[in-house]
């Protein structure tokens, strides 16, 4: 999970690395909301 950024950049050619990192960070931050224990 932590290392997803380069894969995202690779998969989405119009996605800058900075934004990919932010998306990943945000996904992590909100993970528990989508997956309540």
């Amino acid at each position, binding site marked *: *999970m*932590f*290392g*997803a*950024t380069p*894969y*995202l950049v690779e998969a989405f050619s119009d996605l800058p690395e900075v934004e990919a990192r932010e*998306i990943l960070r945000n996904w992590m931050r909100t993970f528990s909301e989508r997956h309540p*224990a």
Partner: protein
Amino acid sequence: MKTYMTVFIPELNIMKTVSKDIIKIDLDNPFKVSGKKDNYYRVDPYLYSNNGHIIDAISEKQLKNLNTYESAIIANGGYLSDILELEFNILYHQLENIGVIVTYTGDCVNYEGARIAVRKMIAYANEIKAICENRA
């Protein structure tokens, strides 16, 4: 019952104890890394810088050592790589061949555990991909 992914960090072999090279990630709560805090911080840079498949990174000898720790190895720092079904099948068969084990909490291990864990990883990867696809 929880599914853990155990990450093996070969670079940390210099520490001489296999147990220190392993962190466990609860796949239902993947951002709370169990194990020694110290290990987490050691591991983190690796996770950012290495995105290959753990299958490439682990030797049979290392696996034998790991078995003694009832640990699971199913994937590495590239969890959110684009794991397609095909890749999953390849991974699964590789795991089968080398006898990798997957732990449940305080329990023993079976290949079904690997299957569950990998499917969770695929689901997580797809979540992130969906966010990227739907971004404004």
